[in-house]
Structures are given as C-alpha cells and as structure tokens.
C-alpha cells in the first residue's frame, strides 16, 4: 500500500493546495480558490481554469469526490467537493514527505548560516 501512495508523490503545488483546502471542510470551487489564497497568504492564486483542470484529475484519481447534495439555499450552479479517505491518506503521506524535506533542509542550512555569521 505504501508503494501505491508513493506513486502519487510528490504532489504538484496546485494539487497540494487543493487537497489542503478540502482537508477541513467540503467546499465549492470559489471557496477552494479563496482558501488556497488564504493558506498561502496570497502568494499562490489559481484561476478557475487551473482549479477545475486539477479537480478533474483529482476526481479521476478518486482523491476528491463531489458531494451528492449541495445546500438548498446556495447558487444551483455550485458544486461542492470533499476529500476522500484515499485523498486524505495521500495528503498525509505528502505532509510526512515534506516534513522530511524540511528536516533535512534545516540540518544542512544551519551550519552554513552559523559560518556566515
């Protein structure tokens, strides 16, 4: 199973941000875009074309699912998306991988930083 998860890694920045935005709650497209902008403090912005291209891939790969019933009082054009269990496992695996990368980077960057001081 570990090998299966690893075949999806590393995730692209867009995929990582979309999955992260759906980790907390189900969201519609515009909600995902706003959450991605919030999480990245405005540094990473994606348009609807990029968003739905990535969502299509995530839906095909079963990392994300469309929720069956959007709220009744909402715009009928909106569709809500949720992170699947499989997607959650992939996201966790990616976060673990990134933690390793950060740990390694800190280990190598510290001595050079102290040398320059």
């Amino acid at each position, binding site marked *: 199973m570990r090998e299966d998860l690893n075949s999806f890694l590393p995730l692209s920045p867009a995929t990582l941000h979309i999955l992260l935005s759906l980790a907390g709650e189900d969201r519609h497209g515009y909600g995902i875009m706003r959450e991605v902008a919030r999480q990245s403090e405005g540094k990473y912005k994606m348009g*609807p074309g990029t968003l739905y291209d990535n969502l299509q891939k995530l839906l*095909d790969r079963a990392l994300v699912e469309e929720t069956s019933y959007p709220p009744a009082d909402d715009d009928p054009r909106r*569709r809500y998306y949720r992170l699947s269990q499989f997607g959650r496992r992939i996201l966790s695996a990616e976060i673990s991988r990134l933690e390793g990368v950060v740990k390694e980077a800190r280990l190598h960057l510290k001595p050079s930083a102290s040398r320059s001081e």
Partner: protein
Amino acid sequence: MIRPLYKWLILLHPPQFRRKFGEQMLCIFDETGGNAQIPLLLDSLMSVMRQWILRSGAWKWMVALAGALMQTTLATLGFLQCMRRMVHANPILTGGPAEGSPPAGMLLLLQAGIATAVIMSGMVLAVSINHFGFRGLGRTPLRKQIKSGRNR
C-alpha cells in the same frame, strides 16, 4: 463586455470539460468582481489550450495524421520514381528488343502492390497510435492502479 468574452472562452473548451465545469467557472467569474475578473480571461484562455492540447489527446490525432500523410506522400513519390525508371529501362516500352526483360505489366503490378501496402500500413499505424496511444498509455492504467489501491 468582459462576461460575454469569458463565456465565449468557456464555450471553446472541449465539450466534456465544458459540460462538467462550464457553469461553475462562470459562477466563479460572477462572484469575482471588478478588476479581478480580467486575469480570469487569461486563465481561461490558457485553460482552453491546456484542455485541447494536453488533455483531450488531440495532439495524438495530429501526429497520427501527419504520419499517415508523410507515409502516403513518400509511397506515392517512390512509386512514381520507380515507374519512371522502369519505363526508361524496359526495352518493350522504349521500343527496343524484348529478349530477357521481365514483362512490364508484372513490374507495374508489383510496384502498385508495394505502394498500396505502404499506404495501408501508414493508415493502420495512424489508427493504432490514436487508439492505443490514447487509451493504452493514457488514463486506463492509472485508473486500474487506483482501483487496485482502493480495493486493498
């Protein structure tokens, strides 16, 4: 003014993508107000190209068509060249003595057969690239892989 342009860009997307996400893209455009709508036009334009070139597999059709055309052209040119040489070399056609030379009709048939075989193989190659190139090398294995991953 911008909204109809954006709507038109959505219409340019491949039908499958447009049916699934077109309304949602327009909904986002409506919710994004003012100057923030302008970058969405560029995003949509990029999306149209991405969907047609990378996602729809249209490039495989183009490669297959170009390959088929190239093969057909080469075969036709080769056939014409061979015919010209044959006419010059064959004593029956040039009016010389006929002893020891193969019948011109047989050679013509042979050349035509080879040319037809090359053209047919080009067409078979074109169809194969499109069929197996899109389905075999595209999404199916990944889907199978995901399904097997989920079933475990």
